[in-house]
């Protein structure tokens, strides 16, 4: 587990992080979210010991963060950079050795990952000759080649096509299942929804939310429900009565419909079920939680309003 305790950092007079405290549990995919300039990169650099905090402490598995942790951390920076004059295999072995691996292990692991991503034939290509997507893959391998316990990924999906996005996401899920912790900083909210367990939201150098993805989505839910049924729309309108408002209708054919309704007042999911039961042939009813994109926008807007007041 990583415990971040009262971390602050300023550059000249600009406060980049203002007393952040939270914990990153082991074996989770942890989302680090926030708009540009919120302080995510500063925090990531502190976690990677690239820069030191002005105040506060970070503990990794109970011990203060120090140089011996380097070998346990993997890092994929947002600003990608590799030595263009090096061959893929040499570059990866070099970076693995810097993380404390022996030459033998570095070479073995590099070959394992090149095989796994089915890019063994790139081994002797020069980095300069790789396309952006290829180079992203190499950079991802560079972050994981030394088998780190903690993996910090800053916008890991940018530059990848959908197939490779899937590949990377599956790889992250697999690592999580192996008990590794992944800290994911991204603006791709769909992937956050898909793979993150806990998230923190930073805004203007402060922590404004910290919870599981589900709890955050629930916390800003807007009373929308999705219903799939067989029957007719008049029967639906009668069932909803004045308790729920019809927002969106989609005809699926053969008298089947998919609709979106919003509750009125203090109505609940149970009220909706009670209203519909016996009046329509229900196929599915579910509460429509807001997307992480909406959660993100909602929390930031709320924070902006509070700040303005």
């Amino acid at each position, binding site marked *: 587990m990583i415990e971040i305790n009262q971390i602050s950092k300023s550059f000249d007079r600009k406060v980049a992080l203002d007393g952040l405290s939270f914990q990153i549990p082991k074996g989770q995919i942890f989302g680090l979210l926030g708009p540009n300039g919120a302080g995510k990169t500063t925090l990531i650099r502190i976690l990677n010991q690239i820069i030191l905090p002005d105040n506060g402490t970070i503990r990794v598995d109970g011990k203060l963060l120090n140089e011996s942790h380097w070998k346990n951390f993997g890092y994929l920076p947002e600003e990608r*950079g590799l030595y263009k004059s090096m061959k893929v295999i040499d570059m990866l072995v070099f970076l693995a050795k810097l993380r404390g691996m022996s030459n033998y292990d570095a070479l073995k692991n590099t070959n394992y990952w090149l095989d796994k991503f089915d890019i063994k034939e790139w081994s002797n290509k020069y980095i300069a000759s790789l396309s952006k997507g290829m180079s992203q893959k190499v950079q991802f391998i560079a972050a994981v080649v030394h088998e780190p316990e903690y993996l910090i990924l800053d916008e890991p999906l940018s530059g990848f096509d959908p197939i490779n996005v899937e590949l990377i996401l599956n790889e992250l899920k697999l690592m999580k299942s192996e008990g590794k912790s992944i800290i994911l900083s991204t603006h791709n909210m769909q992937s956050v929804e898909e793979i993150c367990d806990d998230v923190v939201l930073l805004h203007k150098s402060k922590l404004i939310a910290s919870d599981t993805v589900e709890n955050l989505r629930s916390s800003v839910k807007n009373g929308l429900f999705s219903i799939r049924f067989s029957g007719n729309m008049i029967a639906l309108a009668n069932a909803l009565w004045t308790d729920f408002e019809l927002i969106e209708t989609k005809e699926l054919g053969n008298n089947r419909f998919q609709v979106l309704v919003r509750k009125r007042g203090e109505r609940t999911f149970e009220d909706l079920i009670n209203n519909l039961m016996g009046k329509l042939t229900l196929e599915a009813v579910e509460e429509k939680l807001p997307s992480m994109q909406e959660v993100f926008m909602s929390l930031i807007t709320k924070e902006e309003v509070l700040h303005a007041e």
Partner: protein
Amino acid sequence: MRNSLIIAKRELRERLENRSFIAMLFIGPLLILAFIYFLLQFGDQGKTNMKVLIVDPSGLLENKITSQESKALTYYFYDDYIEIAEFKDGKRFQEFDAMIELNEKVLINKKVFLFYREAPSVDLKMKMKFEVERRVEEVMIEQFTQLSVNAFRQIKQPLNIDFRSVYDPKNEADNSSSWVGFFFGLIILFFISLFGMTVLRGIAKDKSNRIVELMLASVKSRDMMLGKIMGIGWAALLQLFIWTLLVGLGLFVFKSFFFKDIFDASSFEGIQMSEEVKNEILTNSSIAKYNAFIDLIYHRINFWVMIPHFVLLFVLSYLFYASFFSAIGATAGTESDGQQFVIPIFVVLMVSVYAGYMSVYWPDSQLAHLFLYLPFTSAMVILINISNGFAIGSYVETMLSALILIVSSGLFLSIAARLYKNGILIYGHSLRLRNLFQWLKKS
């Protein structure tokens, strides 16, 4: 340190895989050897055989100058005036390479003109000058004095005042040995400039392609900087070693096969000429200078002493100067931005050259002593002192100076490491002195 070594090995490997570096390993010494070869082969390229027409209407030198047995110079006499245009274009004069014009006033105005079609070699010039001058002189002695030629020439010898140090009354340590140290010092400065800029460019490149972010997540900034400096330094040492080896080998081949005659001073004995002419030529001609150069290279340099000191001082000076180059590379917003800040370093390097010059000519001056203790200039001065051999007390001074250089290198490396750490992740700015002071103060 382990990571510094890994980075240093990568830097060295990058250079060894760089075609232009490999090419320069061989092109550099080849160019030097080619230069020496042309110097030896074509340094004295003037005409070496001449037919000379002495225009002597008053018959001043008739039968007084005879042609040499070597036939390098053949003299002919003409007892009337010839216009230059006539000599230049006239058919009957075309066979002559040069015309020496002795008018009747030569004994008064002591002015003789030699008109040539193709410039004579230095040796022929000397011979002609010497022979005409001597013969005219003999005529003047006969006409204007009662003295014998020998007596006149004894009187004519100029007074020779020989300046000698009280510490070296026999003048055993001439400054040609100092030039050896100066030359070695120049090599150090040359390589520092060359590879210092490589350090700067390498760091600026790492910064601009953003790999520093990835590297600094696994290496201390100080170790990263040290690795870079070490790796490029190894490349410099390797280049230096190969250059020395190839140039040394080339000089040996020149000596043994190509220029046996020039390298052998006794070869002058074979040429038929008077002792005076020989002395004159040996003192003034370029061949004599080559011989002095050869004597310096082959006999005066104590390579077993010079090379270890040279390597040690090269390493220390390189570390000292590379700290500045790396600090600038890390703190500059762009590579071109950094190059502006390099100018002061090059000025200091030029001061080192001046320090060497001072130490060769005025080794006991206060300024030379000051330069010995300044880490910017000490390598050059120490090498000059070593090449001269140590006088009593100077060994201690030199070791003290080396110690100052070691301490300064360590100090400036740690200062550079701080600037490196605080500047390496700052992008896209225009470097100002204010930034440097700020980052220096920051922990």
